[in-house]
């Protein structure tokens, strides 16, 4: 640990007699802007080396898996060990296709925000495997409670791109009626819960959904995603307690991408132990996974899903990965971390690793990859143009004014009806009509 802060004012420690002075530890990341990065101290273990316990194993029998890294894809681009999910080439190509699509989508939407088409965007670059692979391992009607960086789930579940863009533009076709910050999607049809901007609230909700499913003798399970930074929220710990107490059929995913805006994982406790180890204290099965290895991510989620479905209880999975870009369009990581971190990240890039595995298996090649990347970019571009016909943020093509007051309650109470009348009156005063843009 770095140098300890000394009390600035010794008088403030008056009355300590001859007891030693206390010192407050404030965590500091290893590298700041301009620093040379050396990640050789991160023990990534060896692909294929980790044992795969039975899905009904007691958490105490598999404690080591909370500290090591489950890895499948080796340096040789081959799949190794008992965690190899042995997916067929078509499934792997589909997975790679989803990852390429998410990357193309992120690229275009980020640019759209810079061009003033919307207020905000969040990329998931470098973390694609942590949402796409688990989404593919779950059944399509298992309920997911995502955080804000799991757009990969929607892509993997076939949610129409145009709906995502309409939401990002908050335009008149936005299914959420322009009420939510861009990327805070919701789709009941795709068993995808409404995303909240308040962090970790989705964790106990996923547990509650899973408890309800169990109450009803249903077969569907739930899964939540949360960043490592927000595991510090009380909600995360409530979720772990309830999941353990009721043996809930739930998967609690923690995406450890090392950074919570500008705060490194040390501010969530990473200097002391792993995030997966949180599970052990609750008696919850815990897996720590190479989050840039799509096969390992898939295998871990599949293990946890089987465990939940067999009434063996919850699993906490830590995906060890790296947030390759800024937190959001409102963030500039060059102000707080070294640009070398991304290049030096010891677990590489998830898209490249899956692509190289398929190529090494003789199931793919660079030409097909280039064609696929181009096709993804084209599709996103076309869909974006299509969505723009429904409007972009702030250009008037929004939902009718009265919708602002709807859905606060099931029925409109008198006070909201009065306020709606006022809002419409203001509109007419300003523009001469309620809908000046048609």
């Amino acid at each position, binding site marked *: 640990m770095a140098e300890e802060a000394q009390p600035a004012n010794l008088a403030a420690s008056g009355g300590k007699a001859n007891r030693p002075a206390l010192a407050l530890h404030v965590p500091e990341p290893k590298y700041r802007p301009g620093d040379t990065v050396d990640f050789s101290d991160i023990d990534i273990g060896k692909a294929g080396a980790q044992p795969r316990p039975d899905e009904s194993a007691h958490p105490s029998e598999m404690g080591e898996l909370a500290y090591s890294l489950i890895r499948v894809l080796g340096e040789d681009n081959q799949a190794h060990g008992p965690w190899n999910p042995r997916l067929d080439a078509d499934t792997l190509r589909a997975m790679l296709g989803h990852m390429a699509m998410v990357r193309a989508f992120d690229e275009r939407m980020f640019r759209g925000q810079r061009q003033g088409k919307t207020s905000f965007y969040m990329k998931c670059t470098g973390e694609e495997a942590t949402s796409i692979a688990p989404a593919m391992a779950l059944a399509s009607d298992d309920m997911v409670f995502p955080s804000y960086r799991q757009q990969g789930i929607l892509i993997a579940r076939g949610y129409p791109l145009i709906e995502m863009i309409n939401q990002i533009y908050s335009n008149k076709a936005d299914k959420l009626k322009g009420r939510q910050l861009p990327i805070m999607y919701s789709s009941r049809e795709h068993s995808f819960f409404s995303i909240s901007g308040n962090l970790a*609230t989705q*964790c*106990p909700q996923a547990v*509650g959904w899973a408890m309800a499913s169990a*109450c009803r003798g249903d077969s569907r399970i739930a899964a939540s995603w949360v960043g490592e930074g927000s595991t510090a929220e009380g909600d995360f710990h409530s979720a772990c307690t*309830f999941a353990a107490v009721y043996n809930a059929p739930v998967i609690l995913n923690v995406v450890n991408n090392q950074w919570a805006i500008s705060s490194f994982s040390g501010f969530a406790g990473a200097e002391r132990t792993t995030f997966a180890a949180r599970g052990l204290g609750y008696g919850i099965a815990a897996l720590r996974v190479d989050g840039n290895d799509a096969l390992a991510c898939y295998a871990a989620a599949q293990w946890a899903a089987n465990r939940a479905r067999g009434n063996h209880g919850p699993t906490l999975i830590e995906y060890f990965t790296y947030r390759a870009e800024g937190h959001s369009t409102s963030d500039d990581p060059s102000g707080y971390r070294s640009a070398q971190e991304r290049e030096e990240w010891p677990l590489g890039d998830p898209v490249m690793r899956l692509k190289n595995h398929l190529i090494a298996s003789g199931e793919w090649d660079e030409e097909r990859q280039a064609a696929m990347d181009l096709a993804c970019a084209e599709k996103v571009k076309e869909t974006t143009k299509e969505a723009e016909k429904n409007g972009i943020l702030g250009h008037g093509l929004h939902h009718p004014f009265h919708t602002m007051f709807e859905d606060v309650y*099931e029925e409109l*109470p008198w006070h909201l009806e009065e306020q709606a009348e006022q809002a419409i009156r203001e509109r007419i005063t300003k523009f001469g009509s309620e809908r000046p843009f048609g």
Partner: protein
Amino acid sequence: MSPESSSVTETAVEAATERRLNMIEAINEALDIMLARDPDVIIMGEDVGYFGGVFRATAGLQAKHGKTRVFDTPISECGIIGVAVGMGAYGLRPVPEIQFADYIYPGLDQLISEAARLRYRSAGDYIAPLTVRSPFGGGIFGGQTHSQSPEALFTHVSGLKTVIPSTPHDAKGLLIAAIEDNDPVIFFEPKRIYNGPFSGFYDKPVEPWKKHPDSIVPEGYYRIPLGKARTVREGEAMTILAYGTMVHVVEAVAREKGVDAEILDLRTLVPLDIEAIEASVEKTGRCMIVHEATRTSGFGAELSALVTERCFYHLEAPVERVTGFDTPYPHSLEWAYFPGPVRIGEAIDKLLSE
């Protein structure tokens, strides 16, 4: 609310037998009926299962309806409400209990940012049909952590409904309506009057509910629509707006002083029965608001503003507010804090003298 539901209520009251219940028994009966009627209803909270709750509101329900319908929870209000939101998203209709309203704060984010916003933010994709039951208010020597009246916090949140019964009859009908409501409802139960109406004259013997006409509780299912006030007493001299325990206190004080007050029991703070308030104040020309909660930014401030905005030209005197003081609820000086007969009586005199 539909006109049918009001007529159902009236018919049920007319058909009522002389069966008398206290408020706890009425709440227990409402929960029992809803558990039987609707397989989606589940009850959870600290000590509510086998034991039946620290106030006995859920007594016998686990034995009758089973452990997966009525169960104990960890001591985590954030977890209780968060889990209930997830259950609501699944399609259940959870009725979580928060053991004391004073304990609800760890669950506020789940209530305010999640339950209250879910319908809006998902454009109706998901709803949170929870009814959060919680005993509130003082007068039981509960000290600062078992006596608070935090209702104003919840009325300030768009998307929440806040309901407070004042009689066993209303507690049952309002709770059934709250559980059936598709919006999240905060159902605050005035624990001082669980076992008997309270006159505010704390040095006089406690009256049991069985002597009160509103302890006649019809058997079976009935609902009282949310958003409808109850006229406790008609009168000409002034309008008194109150809810929960204070309904009984103002009734006793008005009787003691021989004031011909019209007393409205609001029953639901949001949505508020503004029509009943306007009609009464326009008739009497004077308005007093009484609540036990602290004064500054209390719900009385909202009521006072509404009455002033909407009935100003009918008012013959400024609106009076009688409230608890802006201090934590003290233990030994509980009755000095409580807006009792002296404070209310003084306000009545002032209002009538202007």
